[in-house]
């Protein structure tokens, strides 16, 4: 590696991007590539929510011990010493909501714009001041250090939506009925897929971060390399950064996020590294998962590689579905080429890591110690179902004689095909036009499953303005009923002593 740094200093270094490397290895073989190439540059530019900024404002006169602070009405965490703040990228502003957030403050600072600082202090003998308001530019801060707990995912699951309604997610707008697929990641240009065994990447590795030079300070949060989901924790000086590679963004009905440009140079030290840096888009696989299922473990629809995602169309169950990215391949290429240029100019030297990244990580679900109710815990299991051939009179008699207002209608094989309510029956009787429930039942019935969290089912009732959900098993057979009565009883019982 010192030989490569020597060549960087004397300007004779040979650099290619990770997109060019596969072709070189095809042509020259891995041995030839080791002889001809010193460094492979990688790059990615995408939404990285787990990003933020440590700021030191400097002391005021009289001094203040800041407890709460806002930058352009975006709250920054003030519980660190007196004038250190941490601004999170996804924090929305108090006046403009999701359209402006911590990420946008960072972009404004990098672009040289002023931001309004408003702070409240806790009065002590050493910090007598209680409030501070001032206007600051990036240069006015003593330090502005970006520290991102989780960046540069090795790969990320692509998203689609099986439901009947459009979803607005951190993976963008997902159209109903598998209307599109949204993905993120830079494929073969992504840093970690080019060094998946951390032969070079480690603690202390110098990287390109948003136009400046930063460091990898460890593995990121949720780092799970054993499953192909390694992440990086990185830091860099905001004062060196450039808004071409750092952008505030807003995901509709989700919130702000930060687009981070990150590139890692990888020295071609041996044939093993040459082979790994020759990775292609088609070699990097991920899953398309269904964001229509509002649970932690969203089901996978199919496996897919980045070459297919980049093609613009993938096949889901025999239909062609359009794909589009949230991360920018265009800017990812600019990251890799800007990094290549600064290496060629002798401005960017490679560093040996002080220790490698961990080969094993952890991303477990949270331990939930408080009561967490499922639909199955609350629903009533005694359900009276009817067949669609019965008359309105019979249905009315069943409702009057029973303790329920909803009649699920089932087919001969007991599958749910519709629903009739007491209101439907009154309406039919009043209009005197229909005689059988098949003519007036609701056929598009919203359903719940027994293992669905109660909160989600309650939201379904509220969202669709309905008062009951039939609970069905995987064969669509009615096994219970959840009504708004169940919810009000549950709430009433909890509140009473």
């Amino acid at each position, binding site marked *: 590696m010192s030989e490569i740094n020597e060549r960087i200093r004397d300007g004779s270094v040979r650099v290619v991007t990770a997109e060019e490397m596969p072709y070189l290895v095809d042509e020259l073989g891995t041995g030839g590539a080791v002889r001809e190439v010193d460094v492979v540059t990688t790059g990615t530019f995408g939404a990285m929510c787990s990003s933020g900024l440590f700021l030191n404002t400097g002391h005021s006169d009289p001094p203040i011990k800041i407890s709460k602070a806002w930058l352009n009405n975006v709250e920054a965490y003030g519980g660190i010493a007196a004038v250190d703040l941490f601004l999170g990228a996804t924090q929305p502003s108090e006046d403009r909501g999701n359209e402006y957030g911590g990420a946008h403050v960072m972009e404004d600072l990098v672009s040289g714009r002023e931001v309004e600082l408003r702070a409240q202090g806790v009065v002590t003998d050493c910090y007598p001041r209680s409030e501070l308001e001032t206007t600051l530019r990036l240069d006015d801060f003593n330090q502005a250090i970006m520290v991102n707990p989780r960046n540069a995912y090795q790969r990320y699951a692509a998203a689609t939506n099986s439901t009947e309604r459009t979803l607005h997610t951190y993976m963008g*707008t997902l159209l109903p009925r598998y209307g599109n697929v949204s993905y993120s990641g830079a494929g073969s240009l992504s840093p970690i897929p080019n060094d998946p065994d951390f032969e070079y990447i480690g603690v202390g590795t110098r990287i390109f971060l948003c136009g400046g030079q930063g460091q990898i300070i460890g593995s990121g949060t949720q780092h799970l390399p054993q499953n192909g989901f390694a992440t990086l924790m990185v830091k860099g000086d905001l004062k060196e950064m450039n808004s071409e590679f750092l952008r505030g963004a807003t995901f509709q009905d989700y919130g702000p996020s930060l687009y981070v440009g990150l590139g890692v140079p990888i020295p071609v030290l041996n044939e093993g590294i040459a082979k790994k840096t020759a990775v292609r888009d088609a070699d990097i696989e991920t899953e398309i998962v269904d964001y229509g299922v509002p649970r932690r473990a969203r089901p996978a629809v199919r496996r897919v590689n980045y070459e297919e995602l980049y093609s613009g169309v993938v096949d889901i169950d025999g239909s062609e579905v359009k794909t589009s990215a949230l991360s920018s391949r265009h800017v990812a290429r600019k990251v890799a080429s800007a990094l290549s240029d600064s290496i060629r100019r002798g401005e960017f030297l490679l560093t040996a890591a002080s220790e490698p990244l961990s080969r094993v990580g952890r991303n477990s679900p949270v331990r939930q110690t408080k009561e967490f109710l499922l639909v199955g815990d609350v629903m009533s299991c005694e359900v009276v179902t009817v067949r669609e051939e019965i008359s309105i009179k019979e249905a009315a008699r069943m409702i009057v004689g029973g303790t329920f207002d909803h009649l699920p209608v089932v087919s001969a094989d007991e599958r749910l095909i519709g629903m009739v309510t007491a209101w439907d029956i009154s309406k039919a009787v009043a209009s005197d036009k229909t005689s059988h429930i098949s003519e007036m039942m609701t056929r598009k019935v919203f359903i719940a499953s027994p293992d669905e969290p109660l909160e989600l089912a309650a939201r379904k009732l509220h969202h669709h303005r309905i008062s009951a959900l039939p609970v069905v098993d995987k064969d669509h057979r009615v096994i219970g009923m959840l009504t708004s009565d169940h919810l009000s009883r549950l709430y009433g019982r909890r509140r009473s002593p």
Partner: protein
Amino acid sequence: MKLMLHVSPGIVRKPIVSSVILETKALINIERAKVDAVSGEIVVDVDLDKCSEVKRAFEDRGVRVVLLENPIIKDDDECVHCGACISICPTGTFRFEGSEVVADAGRCVQCASCITACPQRALRLVLK
């Protein structure tokens, strides 16, 4: 060419599109329509050679017609070429040329899906 038809309250219940088709014998494709109790906003696509005749026929019936020559504007300083607009557009207005997103504004029917889907807020409808 795409035309935006603004249909005012007095005439919104009349079969205007059908009568224009019968009169002009033009093939009119309805790209998007929003008609409620009091007014309507309809985007139609017409062959270029029939365009002025169809426009006049609608105007004769009291419809305000706007040619959608440049229905959407992309701010190239804000756009980072991610492509989030591509898959959600029903008419295929956006596509990649190399790694850059380009817009074929002539296809846009101003449905506005892309406006909120763009994380950089780089897209704007030109409303007339």
